[in-house]
């Protein structure tokens, strides 16, 4: 089942999305830093914070929305739902396989972000100091932290035939997410709002976002734990939805 889903990624547009969005973040981060060298003078720390700020608030989550919509779009074409439902023995396997298969381009997106940042910092900006390898850890943690959003966008894209509608909902979620991480009063919400969880994970150890937490087990583990629990709930919800809506 997972092999079939991986095969469907071949020649799919998910890879383009996963390539463009992080490169955009690295480029804007690089330009931003080059133009504000006097205020952003903390070297690598300033640079990675610049890159992850907008990426964490917006690009990453939107990328997940786009990848999930792309992954489901092929199933809405023609009579492919019939094929899917007459070859799927266990809906739960399908739901998990789809989520995992969305996770692959998402992980690739993080790889591009990390590699792009390190390369740009070294070659374009010529930053001093040791290369911050812990930034790769931020990239990895945020893939796990993205699971709730991956599960939700997968559910939405499964239900809605439209490609744009789930992405629009994701964007609205980003707006709410920005509010929860920037407002002191709403901050507790940022631990359970999927887009905000992404923002928090990507800004672990960041200097650009207030109250972002450090890159420590103490700050990272609760985030990952919540994310896994949340994702599990959505998976169960999606399985129920297939049973009641798709096999109506």
């Amino acid at each position: 089942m997972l092999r079939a889903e991986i095969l469907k990624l071949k020649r799919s547009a998910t890879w383009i999305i996963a390539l463009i969005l992080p490169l955009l973040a690295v480029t804007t981060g690089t330009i931003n830093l080059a133009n504000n060298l006097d205020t952003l003078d903390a070297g690598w720390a300033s640079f990675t914070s610049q890159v992850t700020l907008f990426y964490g608030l917006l690009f990453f989550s939107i990328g997940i929305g786009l990848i999930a919509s792309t992954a489901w779009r092929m199933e809405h074409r023609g009579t492919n739902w019939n094929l899917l439902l007459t070859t799927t023995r266990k809906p739960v396997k399908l739901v998990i396989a789809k989520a995992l298969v969305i996770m692959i381009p998402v992980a690739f997106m993080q790889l591009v972000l990390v590699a792009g940042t390190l390369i740009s910092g070294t070659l374009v900006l010529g930053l001093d100091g040791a290369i911050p390898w812990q930034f790769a850890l931020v990239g990895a943690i945020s893939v796990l932290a993205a699971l709730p959003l991956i599960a939700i966008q997968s559910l939405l894209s499964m239900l809605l035939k439209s490609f744009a509608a789930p992405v629009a909902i994701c964007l609205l979620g980003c707006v709410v997410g920005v509010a929860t991480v920037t407002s002191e009063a709403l901050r507790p919400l940022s631990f359970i709002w999927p887009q905000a969880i992404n923002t928090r994970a990507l800004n672990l150890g960041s200097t650009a976002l207030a109250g972002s937490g450090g890159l420590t087990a103490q700050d990272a583990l609760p985030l990952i734990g919540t994310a896994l629990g949340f994702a599990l709930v959505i998976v169960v919800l999606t399985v129920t939805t297939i049973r009641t809506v798709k096999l109506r």
Partner: protein
Amino acid sequence: MTSVITTRGLTKQFKTHTAVDSLNLDVPQGHVYGFLGPNGSGKSTTMKMILGLTQPTSGDIKVLGEPLTRASRTKLLPSIGSMIEAPPGYGHLTGRENMRIVQDMLDLSTPQIDHALATVRLTEQQHKLVRNYSLGMKQRLGIAMALARDPALLILDEPTNGLDPAGIEEIRMLLVDLAGRGITVMVSSHLLDEIDKMASVLGILSSGKMIFQGSRDQLFEQSVPDLIIETSDPHAALAQGLTATRVPEGIRMSGIDKDQTAKVIYQLAVAGVPIYEVRRVAQSLEDVFMDLTGRGGLL
């Protein structure tokens, strides 16, 4: 004769109207069952219910001896090959890759995939992207995906759509051959000719209701074809008080059975009417269907 598909009182109600109305279907094992009906008569909806793709409003379905439930559906699925409405397929993948998806989903062997592709004669084109397939090639791929699992039951909704005459003939022969090997085939169509040539049992649907189910011969028994009496003196024949109409070669009579025919011939012979020939008009399935429904045919 064991039934592979049995439905009792199968009904599907959509908001505004009843698409399938108290259907009692009996699809016998090892036959090609032709499921016939005009557009919108409920063929696809019925097939979807049999596959568990949509829930009936009421009624029971038994497939391969088991009542269709969520649990039994999972167990039955690998034995049922199907294609509903139009062939599925991922356009960004090749035919072969599409088959590998089915292979992985149902744990099939590579020879099964090769064989299915060869059966529909798609081996040569298997490495082309499906989005570049012709309609007929897509149709073949859809059939291959249904066949690969070596099903006990094959449910195909208008499988010859978009095929050229040679392709239609191939599929027809394939389905007859499969039935000969004990596989039950339920195939729908609104093309009478097509069904007539492959099905040994027919089910005819009209506005969601089953108006006939049985063999081809039984269907023809349902309606007696007109009798043509060829004579050089139709006036004399009509003067005998027969309910008949004039036709160029003589007279034509409707709805008279064998006994009545014998009586009419005797009566005319005694009256000295010259009779050159007495025959039934050749009747197509379409004539029978019109006779049965009293409406303007299937299409």
